[in-house]
Every structure is written in structure tokens, then in C-alpha cells.
């Protein structure tokens, strides 16, 4: 089991994905040829209306993917992190405050960039708390994460009421976004891909770098090997001279930086203001994406794209509604159904995939140097 978990890419899985995509395409073609109700208009919508929205999908996927990377750093080194949501929320609030207060002082891009810095620091502070509780104190890691979630939810709402609502702080400057000309976006095949990658701000672009960097580092570097060793078999790692506690601390706190970027993205790039509980479960969905992505950065990113697509569904059907019978049916649906969609999708994914995912063996078990076994 250990060996298979350490191996990054397996060929049969790629073949399985190719098969699934092939089946989907075949069903779509058959559906449109045979004029099956809903199926034809659905695939028409998927092929013709959705690709121009690829930038939107990525924008919904960014916080999920950053949350998943935060979870990856923690869980690969053997610490369960259920408090990603709280870390993102704290970072979003602190980033918003810093951006709003420093924006007028530092000028247009620098105020927001300083906000990103503060957001990252805030999330790292929260994850340091989680690290201390779960590594040194050896508290139950689920409770520690839940404490962080509740603390963040209550704390940000409290200070939001206090600092923003009463002082009339309206919004912050957002980070500049690279807007691709429409001609490039309308190129078939290449256009949507370019738009998804380049129609973004700096934080979203840093995600692509982070995913690739983490994938390489986790499976090809000394740090990665140590991290995986500590997450799989801390006793063995300790025997060969790796400081388990230190590796775990470092990874959990560094993972917090990713949660900080997710929060900064929410208030400084996607929106320009903070609302109570504005994350709306993004951290948990990120955790599900991590599990769905089999605890690899690239897998988690792919899963986050899927979750982002589901999350952006509500906006997508409003921006470019599907044609035909599907369009009529979608028009009759209440918005709450679309709101439930990502959560239900998360549950389905968790129920369908978890049994076959190899979790790091020492995940959630505090390391005790003196313990037997």
C-alpha cells in the first residue's frame, strides 16, 4: 500500500479517464442524433455555451483548489485539517481589512498586494494554532479544526459588524486582472483554454504555478519524500533522523499560506468586499476535492475544476442559458436548487470515491516518540 501511495502517476488511471470521456462523448453524440429529450440540448449547451465561460469556472475553482492544497500539505504529513474553511474566512476578512485601510495609503496595486500579504499571515497564524493544538497538545484534530471554523465564523462576523458596518467601510480596491481580447477567446479549442489560464488576476495565476510546483516537489524532492514519509510512517521517518514534529509544524503552517491565498482571492480579486460566512463551505469542498484528487496536487486541482464548474452552474445558466427543452426546464427551477448542487455533488463524490482513495497511513494520528507500534 505504501509503495502504491508514493507512486505519483499510474497509466491505467489515465486510460480509465480516457474511457469515461469517450463514453460521455459517445452518449452526447448519440443523444443529439437520436434527439433524446434534454440530452441533446444539454450537450449542445456543454459544447457551445460553456467553453466561453471557462474563465468563470476557473474563478470558482481557485479558492477550492487553494483550500485543497492547504489540506494536501497538512494531510500528506499526517495532520487532518478540517479548519481550512475557518482559515480561508479569517484570511478573507483580514485581507479585506488590510486592503481597505492600506489601499488609500499605498496606491492602487500595492494596497491590495499588502492585503494579500496580511491575509496569508492571518491564515498562517490560524494554522499555527491548529498545528500547536494537534501536534504538540495532541488534541483531537477534528475538534481543533472545528474550533478554528467556529472561531473564524464568529470572530469575523463580530469584527465585521464592529469595524465595517459601523464605520461604513464600503469596499477595497481589487487586484488588476489581465483581460484577454475577445478575438483570442473566440478561437475554437485554444481560446477557452487560454482564457481560463490568462483571464485571471495574480492570485489565480499563482495557483497554476503552485499546483505544478507542489506536484514536482512532493514526488521529486527531499522535502516531498520527508513529508510523505512522515504522513505514512512517522516512526520509520523518525528512525532515519527526520524530525517528525518539525516537518509537521512546517507543513501545516505553510499549508495555511495556501488557505490565506484562497481568502485573499475571495476579497481582493473575485469580490471587493467581505460578507459574513462568504466562503460558504469552500474549504470543505476543497477537502472533498483533495480526497477526490487522491491526495495529489494535480488531481486535487482537476477535482477543484469539476467542483468549480458545478458551483458556477447557477451563474452559467443565467449568463448563457441552454437552448431547447432543457432551457425551458432550467428556467422553471428555483435558484436554491442550484445553490444545493455543489454540496450534494460533494456528498456524492465523498460517498463514491472515498472507499478507493488511499489516505496517508498516519493521517490524524498525533506522533508520540515514546509510543510502541
Amino acid at each position: 500500500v505504501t509503495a502504491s501511495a508514493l507512486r505519483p502517476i499510474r497509466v491505467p488511471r489515465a486510460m480509465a479517464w480516457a474511457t469515461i470521456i469517450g463514453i460521455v462523448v459517445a452518449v452526447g453524440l448519440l443523444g443529439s442524433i437520436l434527439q433524446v429529450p434534454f440530452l441533446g440540448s444539454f450537450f449542445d449547451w456543454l459544447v457551445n455555451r460553456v467553453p466561453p465561460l471557462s474563465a468563470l469556472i476557473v474563478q470558482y475553482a481557485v479558492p477550492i483548489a487553494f483550500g485543497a492544497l492547504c489540506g494536501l500539505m497538512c494531510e500528506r504529513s499526517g495532520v487532518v485539517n478540517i479548519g481550512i474553511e475557518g482559515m480561508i474566512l479569517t484570511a478573507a476578512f483580514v485581507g479585506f481589512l488590510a486592503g481597505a485601510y492600506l489601499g488609500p495609503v499605498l496606491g492602487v496595486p500595492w494596497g491590495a498586494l499588502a492585503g494579500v500579504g496580511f491575509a496569508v499571515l492571518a491564515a498562517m497564524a490560524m494554522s499555527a494554532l491548529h498545528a500547536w493544538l494537534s501536534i504538540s497538545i495532541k488534541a483531537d484534530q477534528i475538534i481543533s479544526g472545528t474550533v478554528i471554523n467556529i472561531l473564524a465564523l464568529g470572530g469575523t462576523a463580530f469584527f465585521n459588524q464592529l469595524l465595517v458596518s459601523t464605520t461604513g467601510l464600503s469596499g477595497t480596491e481589487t487586484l488588476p486582472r489581465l483581460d484577454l481580447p475577445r478575438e483570442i477567446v473566440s478561437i475554437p479549442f485554444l481560446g477557452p483554454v487560454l482564457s481560463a489560464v490568462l483571464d485571471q488576476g495574480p492570485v489565480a495565476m499563482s495557483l497554476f504555478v503552485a499546483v505544478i510546483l507542489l506536484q514536482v516537489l512532493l514526488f521529486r524532492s527531499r522535502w516531498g519524500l520527508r513529508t510523505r514519509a512522515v504522513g505514512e510512517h512517522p516512526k520509520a521517518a523518525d528512525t532515519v533522523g527526520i524530525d517528525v514534529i518539525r516537518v509537521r509544524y512546517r507543513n501545516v503552517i505553510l499549508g495555511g499560506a495556501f488557505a490565506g491565498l484562497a481568502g485573499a482571492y475571495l476579497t481582493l480579486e473575485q469580490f471587493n468586499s467581505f460578507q459574513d460566512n462568504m466562503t460558504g463551505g469552500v474549504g470543505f469542498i476543497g477537502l472533498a476535492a483533495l480526497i477526490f484528487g487522491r491526495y495529489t496536487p494535480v488531481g486535487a486541482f482537476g477535482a477543484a475544476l469539476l467542483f468549480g464548474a458545478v458551483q458556477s452552474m447557477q451563474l452559467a445558466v443565467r449568463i448563457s442559458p441552454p437552448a431547447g427543452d432543457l432551457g425551458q426546464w432550467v428556467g422553471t427551477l428555483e435558484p436554491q436548487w442550484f445553490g444545493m448542487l455543489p454540496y450534494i455533488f460533494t456528498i456524492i463524490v465523498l460517498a463514491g470515491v472515498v472507499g478507493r482513495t488511499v489516505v496517508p497511513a498516519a493521517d490524524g494520528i498525533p506522533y508520540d516518540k515514546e509510543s510502541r507500534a
Partner: protein
Amino acid sequence: MSEERGASSAAMSVDPTTLLLGGGLGRQVAVTTVAVVLGLAIGAILIIISGMLVPDGRFDPTLPITAYGALIEGSLWNAEGLNLTGIGNALNAATPLILTGLSVAFGFRAGLFNIGAQGQFFLGAFPFPIGMAIAVLAGALGGAFWGFIPGILKAWRGAHEVVVTIMLNSVAALFLNLLASGLFRDPGATFPRTPDVQPGALMPILIEGTRLHGGIFLALIVAAEPERRALRRHPASADHGPHDEHGRRIGRPGRRGRDPRDHEELPGRVQHDVRLRRYRRRAAGPGASGGRHRCCAPVRRPSLRRRIDAAPDGYPGRHHQHRPGRDPAVRGGGGRHPAPAAIHALAAGHVGHRRGNRRGRRVRRRA
């Protein structure tokens, strides 16, 4: 493999109620008191900070005293004496908290974290315009169904119960929003809400002028029952020392609870012991503890007579079954094989029973 890991990590997590209740009454009271005092202290700090942050605010250390004074005045005691209205409303507010807390405690006892009690609470709270008893039952069923989803997914698929319940919280909130603004919407209301519950379905009001209703008794009765049962079934849970998830005492025999390391090494030890015990139990079959763990024997071992009668080859015990040539499912394998007279004599109670030392453990003879 991942199943096994899931099981071990679930067994690993220390039952929080054991941590809280595992130290006798004195420790329980101490832990609770410290928690409440700490909560009040942090609240006081927040009150002072918020006093400084509001427009033209200033540093005022007496602010928490004023605030907590107002809290007591509003809910307990004021200048005119006992504040009945306040007490009634406080108890009223406590009722759903007691019941929700119970639902979480129930999950903890099973070693699971039921963070989604809020969503289950939401769904249970949906008023149905029928008689009160039916309404309460329907509410309970609604909540139970919502709790059933993460339960079955955990048991069947190993889905992470924390994430699933939190996702279900959001789904429940949105779903009820949908119902309240669509199917069950009060036609006269300006914002999405359901019509009032009919008077026949409402709990009787206990004190005039307050909202305190009979639900508090329901909460108290329900709260008392599982606690009584839990203590009866797990007498060890009122004991010092580490316990595994079933409330069994673990650790070194003879010095359980006396060695401070028994407390310190709890997680690793719990995991190790639980795994070992589970393995042994599985290897030995149901009821193999022979009722020695009387508080929590999962299945009582049937009597020797019954085991002889139930065994396909007439021999009790696992090591006799599936012998080549003796399996009735195999052609020519023979059906029921008459057991030797000695075993029948044992079953009839003529001879003392001493089991062989099969699993390398000392098995004490029972009277």
C-alpha cells in the same frame, strides 16, 4: 485496506465525553467551571475591545461587569426579585440547545462527530400543521432522516462524516428556504415564511407572559434517559484511566489508571489496544469473550448445547468446522456428524469445562 485505516483512525480519536466525564464528579465540575470562566473572560476581553473600537469609544474595563450584570438582570434576577419572565425565556432558549447537544453527544458515544446537528435541527424544526404529538414525532423523524444520511454514508462508503454533515447543513438550509418560499409559503406574508403552526400542534405555555413551553420537559426527559443507560451499560465510564471506544478499561492490568502514562499515551495506546482487541475478537468469533466483559459483550456466547446443535458437523467451535470431507456443502462431505459423547456430557454439565489455551491467553475457569 482503506477501510481498515478508516476504522483505526476512528478508533484513534478519543471520545470527548470520556475525556470530560472520565474523571469522577470532582473533575467534571472542575473542567466545566474552568471552561465557563474562560469563556466569560474571553467574552470580557471582546467586550472591552469592542467598546474601544466603536466610534468615540474608549478603554473601559468596567464594561464587562455592566454587560454581565445586564445579562443576569435580564434572565435571572433584577431589582424586583426573581425575574420569572427572564427565567422562562432562558429555559425556552435552552430547550433546543439541550436537544441539539444531546444529538451530538449521541454521535460522540458512537465515536463519530456529528457536527451537522444544526442541519438536522433545522429539518426537525419544520412545523407541520398536525396535532402536537404527531408534529413532534414528525420533526424527530425529519431530523433522524437527515442524520441517517451521513450515518449510512459513513458505514457503507466510509464518507467523511464531518464534511458530509456540514454539506448537509447547507443543503438543509437551502431546502427549507425553498419550501418556505415556495410550497409552504404563507400567502399573506411579505417575506418567505410558513404560516403559523395551528394552536393544536403547539406545546402548552408553562408560564403566562413568557414563551416557555412544555418542550423543556421533553428535553429533560430525553437528556436523562441515555445518561442513565450509558452509565448502566458502561460502568467503567465513571472510572479513572483510559478506556477504549466501548468504554472498556484498557492499559496495563492491575495498575490501570494509576500510572500517569496511561493518560499521556492515550491516543497511541488506544489505537494499539483497540486494534489488538478487534483482531482477537474477530479471530475468536462473536461472544468469544465468554461474557467476561460483562458490561459490553457484543454477543453473548451461546451455551455449549446450542453450539453443538448449531454446528453443521456436530462439533462446537470453529476449528472443527470446514474440515475437508466434513463439509455438508461438498459432495460426499457428510452431513451432521455425531459428536463424541464427551462433548455431550460437557453440555449436560457433567464434567467441568476447561478450554485449551488456543489463543495464547490465560483463560480463567468459571464456576
